[in-house]
């Protein structure tokens, strides 16, 4: 694996971001909108519920962690879609670039873009609604790690699906986080769900993060074994997604799909 080739992928994305406010704005605009919307909702709930539950720490914190997960996933897919839209696969994969170097470039791009969102989210949430991420303590690092790894895994899986099924499949990728969120227990304990949905939740790494977060806010201590389980699960998904991408790429190279990608021959 040659680092200069991975950096070439990052450089291409940096050039695109530098020359385009339309690409920079979404890195933090949706995060800011979510903070304002959920910040006021949680402030209102704190005022009227009288339950003693701190909705800012539970709901707003959950929304922002979920936003972070989506930013990570979209950081990978958006960088990939740039090559879909500019029909650049033939040019890229006629070079010595390997799939590991290419995906590595997408991941580094996602780290940079999601870090921008994370910084904006931390500053805005603490300044406007006094939400301190430090209140989650050391487990916050594990929360972010699990969400990051699973976000990358889902992003790589989504890229492989679009590579296999064609550019039109892009529109099936955007709703994936919304479809997962009811199962992941972002806003409520997993125990609230029917049994079959709980089964799905246990297979999703973010569910362990949000359960742990709620436990901390309620004054308990997070289960290390549970968090470790979420972490292992996320790594397994990442490995599976990587293997799926390589398999899909090899299929595209073997069948010639990669040279006629825009023709959407599978459709």
């Amino acid at each position: 694996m040659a680092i200069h080739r991975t950096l070439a992928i990052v450089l291409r994305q940096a050039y695109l971001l530098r020359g385009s406010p339309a690409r920079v704005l979404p890195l933090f605009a949706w995060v800011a909108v979510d903070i304002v919307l959920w910040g006021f909702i949680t402030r209102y709930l704190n005022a009227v519920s009288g339950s003693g539950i701190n909705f800012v720490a539970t709901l707003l914190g959950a929304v922002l962690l979920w936003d972070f997960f989506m930013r990570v996933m979209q950081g990978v897919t958006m960088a990939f879609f740039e090559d879909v839209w500019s029909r650049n696969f033939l040019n890229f994969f006629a070079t010595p670039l390997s799939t590991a170097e290419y995906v590595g470039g997408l991941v580094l791009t996602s780290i940079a873009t999601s870090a921008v969102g994370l910084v904006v989210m931390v500053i805005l949430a603490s300044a406007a609604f006094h939400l301190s991420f430090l209140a989650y303590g050391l487990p916050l690092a594990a929360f972010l790690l699990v969400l990051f790894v699973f976000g990358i895994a889902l992003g790589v899986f989504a890229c492989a699906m679009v590579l296999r099924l064609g550019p039109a499949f892009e529109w099936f990728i955007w709703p994936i986080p919304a479809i997962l969120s009811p199962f992941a227990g972002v806003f409520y304990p997993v125990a609230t769900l029917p049994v079959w949905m709980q089964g799905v939740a246990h297979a999703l790494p973010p569910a362990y993060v949000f359960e742990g977060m709620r436990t901390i806010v309620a004054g308990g201590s997070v289960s290390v074994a549970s968090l470790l389980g979420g972490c292992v699960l996320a790594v397994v998904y990442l490995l599976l997604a990587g293997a799926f991408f390589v398999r899909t790429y090899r299929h595209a190279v073997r069948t010639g799909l990669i040279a006629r990608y825009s023709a959407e021959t599978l459709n």
Partner: protein
Amino acid sequence: MLAPSDGTIRIEGLDIASSRAQALERTNFAAVYAPLPGNLTVYQNLRVFGLLYGVNDLPARIGELLRQLDLEAFRNTRCGVLSSGEQTRVGLAKALLNRPHLLLLDEPTASLDPATARDIRAKIRAFAAEGGSGVLWTSHNMYEVEEVCDRVLFVSHGKILIEGDPKSLPREHGKATLEELFIATAREPLTIKEA
């Protein structure tokens, strides 16, 4: 870049299936149907692809190619707004970045006006004349093939039907020009093969 359906592809002895990166480091390609991303400038595209090929002293190499291919005026212009002739020259600059030992050109002059096409042919011939590199050029323009190539192969459905010197080949097959031979081969491939 595609996997062969049968057999092996070797570039300077390197099997592309097992030593893909090393083999592709020695090659490059340009084709009208694979333009460089239109939302990057000429310089940005050449820098990205120069990094991918691991070109030494990249800024100097880019400067050299921009001069050779008359692209200095477009250095900071996005590729998407260039004319087809200019885009072809940018594609050629990308293809020459790593001084490939094997340069693959798929219809490099297709859809260009005759003056620009002649200019492009001259640039490619100048590159080939530097020595040390082979150029594999696919074209349906037989006048161009006759003018530029040392050796021609007529290929149909993955099989080589005829090969030889494009200047002497028509006579050897009883035809006046390479274009006549091409047309006859396309219509009656088996007859020509046996002749």
